[in-house]
């Protein structure tokens, strides 16, 4: 077993406006991207556990042109409010860095077309 950091070329979080947090997990090539995406490890359920939000509010996208997986969730608190710990949202990805990912592809799962819900640009 390996860690997500061994496969990804960039794992980042950032505000998508003051009310949303977005996670970008990018891979260096299509093969690595397919391997991690098909492993099913980076699931809606994992994101819900990591960010402590209900699974229903997690939006997960597979973005083939950039070999990337994108996850968008409501910010735990609005940016800049007293409880907020991360104004730009830049460090919230930390628990994902060492997520365990299989070395070899598991039973391939199809890349699903995910419903694109309404969002506004930042």
């Amino acid at each position, binding site marked *: 077993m390996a860690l997500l950091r061994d496969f990804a070329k960039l794992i980042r979080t*950032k*505000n*998508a*406006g*003051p*009310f*949303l947090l*977005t996670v*970008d997990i*990018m891979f260096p090539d299509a093969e690595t991207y397919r391997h991690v995406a098909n492993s099913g490890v980076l699931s809606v359920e994992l994101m819900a556990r*990591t*960010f*402590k939000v209900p699974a229903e509010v997690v*939006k997960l*996208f597979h*973005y083939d*042109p*950039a*070999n*990337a997986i*994108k996850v*968008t969730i*409501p910010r*735990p608190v*609005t*940016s*800049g*409010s*007293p*409880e907020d*710990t*991360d*104004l*730009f949202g830049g*460090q*919230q990805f*930390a*628990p994902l860095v060492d997520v365990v990912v299989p070395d070899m592809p598991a039973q391939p799962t199809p890349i699903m077309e995910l419903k*694109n*819900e*309404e*969002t*506004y*640009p*930042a």
Partner: protein
Amino acid sequence: MTKKIKYLSPTGVLGVGFSEDHFMAALSPDLAFIGCDAGSTDGGPANLGGNKPFFSHGAVKRDLRILIKGARQVDIPLMIGSCGGSGGDWNLNWVWEIVQEIAREENLNFKTAIIESEPDRELLLQKYREGKFRALDPAPEIDEDTLRDTDHIVAMMGAEAYQEALANGAQVILAGRSTDAAIFAAIPVAQGFPPGLCWHAAKIMECGGAAVVSMEKPEGMICTITDDYFELEPVSPTQSCSPLSVAAHTLYETGDPYMMREPGGVMDLTHARYESSSERTVRVSGSAFHPEPYTVKLEGAKKTGYRAMVLGGVRDPMILGQFDSWFGGLQDSIRNNIDAVYGESMAGKYRIDFKLYGHSGVLASREPTLGQTPTEVGVLMVSQAETQEVAYAIAGQAAHMVLHHTVPEWQGLVSNLAFPIAPHFWNLDPAYQFVLNHVVELDHPLELHRIRYEEI
């Protein structure tokens, strides 16, 4: 000859800088315009609520001087969106004053359009009562008082405001709050290029030269749009775009990589294709734009109180070994002490927010290592109250209580916090809160924005 339009985005945000040499090399009468975004909500609600620019006067003036001189030299429009960071009227006027200073110092004459984006509150209330507001997800609860009492509300303008200003002969456009892409889509859309390509290109161009393979420092990007594709070329000769770098940039700060809303419709990038057209340039095609009823997004910042802060470090292993229980008891002590000082219950009249660095300062309850013994803990305390005086007094009380809070294993007076800054507590600027994440449907695109023209 193929119909095409070419334009320049010198940097990702006005005031962050760019190389003057590269900019001058890219400057040409072939360019249709220069556009630059100046805004961000990244700095939090105080930029809008408290009339604070995102970058310094000196930094913005440095960039603007180069851009104005360059645009006037080749006689093309210069368009700046979301002036002063938030695009609020104060922030917009702050940039307008800088423009006037530059014009005087450089002996330049031009016509400026100033597009204000703080809507008339009565008009907003009328729209609200007519049911023209729609909450985005997630959005705070609002009512009529929100629209009356919020310190500053801005409406993000679309491309039409820029088009109107240009039609009236503006050579420099200073816009209040704007969608980032509207700055760059306005002219290409008005000239009849395919809206999908215009808006997708604009979405990438608003970040200047950020969509390159490796961004060593902020530089610009040149975009050329035809009827079939748009092409991106970094201004810096040492930087290059790749299909991957451009596609990856589409993800940045967006909630959805396929669908991105603008005031008059939605960009649909589902079928966008990214191809190399040279070692440094990338062509994009297949982007679509679907028109929708005209809505603009509102942002609002409301003052919620006054603040003071304390920062100190705990290194005592006796405390760190039982940090959570020690800290829990401490919060009770602070509360009781503050009530005793004021001689009444202060519950509900102030708040203290703690960030415990080395413990849970960044991830809060999401921290997976909670329960482990930390090596040291940085305690950041921010007090907030209805007056600056009370906020400051409470920060001082809290600092004192943490400093001397009992550690069961030690006998005698302890000093639990290492303060790295003297004095050890101090006032902050007032606190603001983002209170709107709504769109409002308009009868026509310029309904909420006022344009005035100034000749220098």
